[in-house]
C-alpha cells in the first residue's frame, strides 16, 4: 500500500485534517469557547520543540555516538524548572505590553528601539534558516525513500537534480501555502493563532504516537525487548564502545555541558518557542502543569531512540543506510507498510509543526520589526495617510513566509549536504542563544541600555557567523577550503574552527564559548559606559519591576495633546474599522461608559491604550512611530522620567510607612482603651467604697444620735437605763473610731505612704503576744485555744506592730464566729520552703466557696449582710492581706460549711534586708 499516489494522498489528507482542526478551533475561539484554553494543550503545543530533528535526527546522532543526543532534551527539562521565575515575568510583561514576538519583546525593553528590533529579526531569520532547511531535507528525504518502496535507496545528493525536480523545493512551496492559510488568513490584533495552536498540539500527539509505535515495533517486534537489543549490541565490537560512550565517541564532557546550556536557551529563544510559550499563552497558571508535562513528553519521545539506533546499526551493517533514516527504513525493511506510512506522517507532523510556527513567528517579526518601521519612516510613501493598512500588513507577512521558506531551501541547496540533521539544527540553536544575554539582562538588570544590547547582539552574531555559518558554507564548497585549513589570508590565529588557537573542542562548543564571551562582554561593557535615554529608562523600569507595579504603568509617562478621532483613525487603519471599534468599546466599557461618548477624552490613558493596541498589530516600535505622528507630544526628559519613577517608589515607601504608623496607632489605641477601662473600674470601686463607707459610718452615728436624743429629752431616765445607753454610745463611738482608723490605715497602705517599721521579727514571740492579748476575750466567750508552736522558727522581716494587728484580726475573727462556750481555736506555727506559716483554725459554721472568693475584699463579709450583720467593719481581712503581701507573703482561707475555717498566712524568712525603711 505504499504506492506513490497513496503516499501523496495521505500527505495531503493529513494536511487537510490539520487545517480542519485549525478551522474548528478558530470557529470555537470566535464563539468564545476556546479549545486551547487548557494547560494540557499548552504543554503539547510547547512540544513543537520536537521537530524532524528529534524524529529522525536523534536516532542518527545516537547511532553515531550513543547518548550524545540527550542533552538537547535534558536542557529544556532543567530550564522549564526556572520558568516559574523567568517565564512568569516574561508573560506578565508581554501581556501588559501586548508583545507580538521575541523581536518586539527585546525592542520594547530597550526603549522601543526599531533598530534593536530589526537586528533581532535579522539574526533570527538568518539563524533559523539552517533549521528550516533541516525540516525540508527531512521531509523530502523521507518522501523520496518511501516512494522507492520496497527498495531501500538513499536519496540522491542535493544538487544532482535540477531545481524543479527537487522534492525539497516543492515541499517548501507547499508548506509556504499551507502556512499562509494557517497563520495569515486574517489579522488578529493580539497575534493569537488559536487554530494554529490546536493543530500544533494535535501534531505533537501524532509524532509521539508514531515514534513510540516504531520504537515498540523495533524493540519488541524485531528484537525481544531492551535487553536483547543491548546485549546484541555489546556483542558487536563496533557497537560495544557506545555503551559507555562519554569519553570516547561523544567527545568530551565539555560538549555535553554546552549542549545542555544551548538547549536550555533554545527552549526559550527559538522564535517558535517564544510564540507558543508566550504569545499564544492564555493563562500564566498553565505553567503549573506544563512544568512537568512538557519534560515528560521529552522523556517519552526519547525512550526508544537508543534501541532504534542500535537496532538499525545491527540491521544495516556497513553504513549502506543513513542512520538519520532508520526510523523509516527499519519498518520498510521488515515490510511493515502501514507502520512505515505512520512514521512518514509522524515525520511530516514534526516538520510541518516546526515550519508553520517558526515561519509565522518570523514573518510577524519581519513585518512588525523590520519592514513596517522602515515603511512608516519613508515619508514619500505617505503610508501613514492610507485609510486601511490591514491588507498591506497581511501581504507583507505572506511575502515574508514565502521568502523565509525559499531562503531555507536555498540554504539546503547550498549547505544542506555537509552535515547530519542534528548538526544543522545546532547551528540555529547557537544563533538564537545570542538573544539570551539581552533578554535575561533586560529582565533583571535595570541599567542595560539600547546600545549595550545592540553591541552584544552584533558581536555575538558576528562570531556565530564566523565560526559556524562560514565553515558550513566552506565545507559545501561555496567558499575556499583553505579558509578553514589556514585561516583568512593565512592567519592561523583566525581559523574559524580554532579561533585564537582554541582547539580540541567540537565546533558547537568552540563557537558558543567565543560568541557568548563576545556577546556578554560587549553587552555589559557598552551598557556600563552608556547612559540611557528617558524612553529606555522608562521601559527598563516597566520590565524589571513588572511585579511591583500594579497595572501597566505606561500611561504615567505621557504628556501632550491628542484628539480621540485622530487616534481612532490610526487604530482603524491598522486593525480594520470593526476591530478598532471593538477595542474602543472595550476601553469605554472598562470605564463604565458607552462608545462613543464625548466624555472620553484623549488623555494619557487613552493614548497609551491606543499605542498598546497598535503594538499588538504592528509591534511596539512601529506603534510608537505611528502614535508619535498622530498626536502632539511633549517629550519627557530623562530627569522627568526618573522623577516619575522615584515618585512611584516614594509612594510605595510612604504607603509602607503609613501602614506602619497606623499599626502603631492601633496598638496605642488598644493600650489606651485598656487603661481607660482600668480607670473606669477603679472609679467604680471608689464609688462603691464611698457608698459603703458612708453606710458604715451612718449606722453607728444613727444609734449614737438616737440614744443621745433619748438621754437629752428625758432627764427622768433611770440611772441603770442611762448607764446602758451611755455604754452603747461609747461602744458605737469606739466602733466609729476603729472604722475611721482602719480606713485611714487602708488609705495609707494602698497609696504606699504607710509607715513600716521593718525589723527582724520572731513569729513565735508575736503569736504568743497576740494570744496573751486575746486571753481575756477567749475566757469571756468560753473558747478553748490550743497551740502547736515549734521550739524555734527563724525570724522573718516584718513590722512587728502590723504583724500583731494581723494576728489579732484573725484571732478575733475566729472568736467572733465561734459558738460561745463550745468554741475551739487551734493556732499552729510551722516552717516550710523558706517560709514561716501560721494557721488559725476555728470550729465555727465555716465559709461557703462563694464567700471564700470575696472575703478578702473591702467591706465584704461572710454570710448574708442584709439580714444578719456580722460584727466588724469588713476591712480587717483586707488590711491583713495587704500587710502580709507587703512583706512578700501570702494569705488564704480553707473551709467547708459546717467544718470550721482555717485562715493561713506565710511570710518569707529573711528576704528583705534588715533595717528600717519606708516603703
Amino acid at each position: 500500500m505504499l504506492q506513490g499516489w497513496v503516499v501523496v494522498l495521505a500527505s495531503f489528507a493529513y494536511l487537510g485534517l490539520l487545517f480542519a482542526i485549525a478551522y474548528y478551533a478558530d470557529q470555537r475561539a470566535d464563539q468564545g469557547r476556546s479549545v486551547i484554553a487548557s494547560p494540557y494543550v499548552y504543554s503539547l503545543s510547547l512540544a513543537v520543540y520536537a521537530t524532524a530533528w528529534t524524529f529522525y535526527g536523534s536516532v542518527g546522532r545516537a547511532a553515531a555516538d550513543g547518548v550524545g543526543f540527550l542533552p538537547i532534551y535534558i536542557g529544556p527539562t532543567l530550564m522549564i524548572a526556572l520558568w516559574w521565575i523567568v517565564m512568569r515575568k516574561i508573560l506578565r510583561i508581554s501581556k501588559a505590553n501586548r508583545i507580538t514576538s521575541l523581536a518586539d519583546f527585546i525592542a520594547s525593553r530597550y526603549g522601543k528601539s526599531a533598530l534593536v528590533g530589526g537586528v533581532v529579526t535579522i539574526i533570527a531569520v538568518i539563524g533559523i534558516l539552517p533549521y528550516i532547511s533541516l525540516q525540508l531535507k527531512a521531509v523530502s528525504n523521507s518522501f523520496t525513500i518511501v516512494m522507492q518502496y520496497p527498495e531501500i535507496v538513499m536519496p540522491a545528493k542535493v544538487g544532482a537534480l535540477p531545481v524543479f525536480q527537487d522534492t525539497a523545493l516543492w515541499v517548501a512551496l507547499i508548506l509556504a501555502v499551507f502556512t499562509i492559510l494557517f497563520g495569515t488568513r486574517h489579522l488578529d490584533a493580539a497575534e493569537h493563532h488559536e487554530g494554529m495552536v490546536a493543530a500544533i498540539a494535535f501534531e505533537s500527539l501524532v509524532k509521539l504516537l508514531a515514534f513510540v509505535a516504531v520504537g515498540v515495533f523495533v524493540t519488541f517486534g524485531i528484537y525481544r525487548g531492551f535487553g536483547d537489543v543491548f546485549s546484541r549490541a555489546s556483542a558487536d565490537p563496533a557497537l560495544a564502545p557506545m555503551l559507555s560512550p562519554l569519553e570516547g565517541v561523544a567527545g568530551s564532557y565539555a560538549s555535553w555541558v554546552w549542549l545542555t546550556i544551548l538547549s536550555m536557551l533554545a527552549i526559550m529563544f527559538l522564535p517558535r518557542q517564544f510564540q507558543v510559550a508566550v504569545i499564544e499563552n492564555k493563562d500564566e497558571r498553565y505553567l503549573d502543569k506544563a512544568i512537568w508535562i512538557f519534560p515528560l513528553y521529552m522523556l517519552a519521545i526519547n525512550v526508544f531512540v537508543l534501541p532504534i539506533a542500535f537496532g538499525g546499526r545491527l540491521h544495516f551493517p556497513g553504513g549502506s543506510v543513513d542512520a538519520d533514516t532508520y526510523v523509516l527504513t527499519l519498518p520498510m525493511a521488515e515490510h511493515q507498510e502501514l507502520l512505515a506510512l505512520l512514521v512518514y506522517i509522524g515525520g511530516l507532523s514534526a516538520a510541518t509543526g516546526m515550519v508553520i510556527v517558526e515561519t509565522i513567528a518570523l514573518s510577524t517579526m519581519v513585518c512588525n520589526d523590520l519592514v513596517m518601521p522602515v515603511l512608516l519612516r519613508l515619508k514619500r510613501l505617505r503610508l501613514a495617510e492610507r485609510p486601511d493598512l490591514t491588507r498591506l500588513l497581511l501581504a507583507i507577512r505572506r511575502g515574508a513566509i514565502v521568502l523565509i521558506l525559499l531562503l531555507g531551501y536555498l540554504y539546503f541547496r547550498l549547505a544542506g549536504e555537509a552535515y547530519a540533521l542534528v548538526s544543522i539544527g545546532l547551528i540555529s540553536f547557537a544563533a538564537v542563544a545570542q538573544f539570551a544575554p539581552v533578554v535575561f539582562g533586560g529582565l533583571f538588570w535595570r541599567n542595560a541600555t539600547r546600545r549595550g544590547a545592540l553591541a552584544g547582539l552584533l558581536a555575538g552574531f558576528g562570531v556565530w557567523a564566523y565560526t559556524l555559518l562560514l565553515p558550513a558554507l566552506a565545507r559545501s564548497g561555496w567558499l575556499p577550503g583553505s579558509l578553514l585549513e589556514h585561516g583568512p589570508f593565512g592567519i592561523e590565529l583566525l581559523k574559524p574552527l580554532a579561533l585564537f588557537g582554541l582547539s580540541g573542542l567540537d565546533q558547537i562548543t568552540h563557537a558558543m564559548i567565543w560568541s557568548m564571551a563576545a556577546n556578554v562582554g560587549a553587552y555589559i561593557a557598552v551598557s556600563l559606559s552608556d547612559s540611557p535615554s528617558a524612553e529606555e529608562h522608562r521601559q527598563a523600569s516597566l520590565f524589571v519591576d513588572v511585579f511591583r507595579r500594579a497595572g501597566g504603568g505606561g500611561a504615567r509617562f505621557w504628556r501632550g495633546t491628542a484628539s480621540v478621532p485622530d487616534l481612532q483613525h490610526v487604530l482603524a487603519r491598522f486593525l480594520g474599522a470593526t476591530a478598532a471599534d471593538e477595542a474602543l468599546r472595550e476601553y469605554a466599557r472598562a470605564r463604565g461608559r458607552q462608545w462613543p461618548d464625548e466624555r472620553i477624552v484623549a488623555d494619557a490613558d487613552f493614548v497609551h491604550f491606543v499605542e498598546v493596541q497598535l503594538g499588538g498589530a504592528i509591534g511596539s516600535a512601529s506603534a510608537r512611530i505611528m502614535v508619535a505622528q498622530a498626536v502632539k507630544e511633549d517629550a519627557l526628559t530623562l530627569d522627568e522620567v526618573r522623577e516619575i519613577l522615584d515618585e512611584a517608589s516614594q509612594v510605595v515607601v510612604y504607603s509602607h510607612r503609613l501602614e506602619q504608623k497606623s499599626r502603631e496607632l492601633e496598638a496605642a489605641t488598644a493600650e489606651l482603651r485598656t487603661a481607660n477601662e482600668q480607670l473606669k473600674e477603679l472609679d467604680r470601686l471608689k464609688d462603691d467604697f464611698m457608698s459603703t463607707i458612708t453606710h458604715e459610718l451612718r449606722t453607728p452615728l444613727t444609734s449614737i444620735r438616737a440614744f443621745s436624743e433619748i438621754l437629752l429629752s428625758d432627764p427622768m431616765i433611770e440611772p441603770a437605763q442611762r448607764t446602758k445607753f451611755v455604754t452603747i454610745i461609747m461602744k458605737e463611738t469606739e466602733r466609729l473610731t476603729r472604722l475611721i482608723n482602719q480606713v485611714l490605715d487602708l488609705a495609707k497602705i494602698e497609696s504606699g505612704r504607710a509607715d513600716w517599721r521593718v525589723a527582724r521579727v520572731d513569729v513565735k514571740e508575736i503569736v504568743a503576744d497576740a494570744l496573751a492579748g486575746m486571753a481575756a476575750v477567749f475566757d469571756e466567750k468560753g473558747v478553748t485555744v490550743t497551740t502547736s508552736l515549734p521550739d524555734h522558727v527563724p525570724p522573718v522581716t516584718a513590722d512587728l506592730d502590723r504583724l500583731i494587728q494581723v494576728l489579732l484580726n484573725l484571732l478575733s475573727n475566729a472568736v467572733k464566729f465561734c459558738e460561745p462556750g463550745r468554741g475551739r481555736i487551734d493556732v499552729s506555727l510551722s516552717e516550710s520552703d523558706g517560709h514561716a506559716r501560721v494557721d488559725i483554725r476555728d470550729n465555727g459554721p465555716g465559709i461557703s466557696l462563694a464567700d471564700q472568693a470575696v472575703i478578702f475584699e473591702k467591706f465584704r463579709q461572710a454570710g448574708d449582710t442584709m439580714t444578719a450583720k456580722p460584727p466588724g467593719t469588713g476591712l480587717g481581712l483586707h488590711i491583713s492581706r495587704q500587710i502580709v503581701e507587703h512583706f512578700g507573703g501570702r494569705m488564704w482561707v480553707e473551709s467547708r460549711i459546717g467544718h470550721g475555717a482555717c485562715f493561713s498566712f506565710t511570710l518569707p524568712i529573711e528576704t528583705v534586708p534588715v533595717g528600717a525603711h519606708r516603703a
Partner: protein
Amino acid sequence: MEGDGGKGQRLVALCMLGFLTFNYPVLALFNKPLLFLGIPLLYAYIFAAWALLIALMARVVGRAGS
C-alpha cells in the same frame, strides 16, 4: 517571586540538582561498560534520574497549588 510560597525557590533548587545530576563528575561514575537489568548502566542512570527529576518537579508545583 511574589506570592508563590517558595515554589520558585524549590524549582530553582531542582534545576541546580538536575544540572549536577547530568554532568561531570556524577555522569562519569555511571559511564562504565556494564549492563544493569540488560540495559547499559549509563542509559539506565540517565533515564531513571530524568524521570525522578520530573516527578519531583511535578510534586513541587502540584503541592504548592496555584
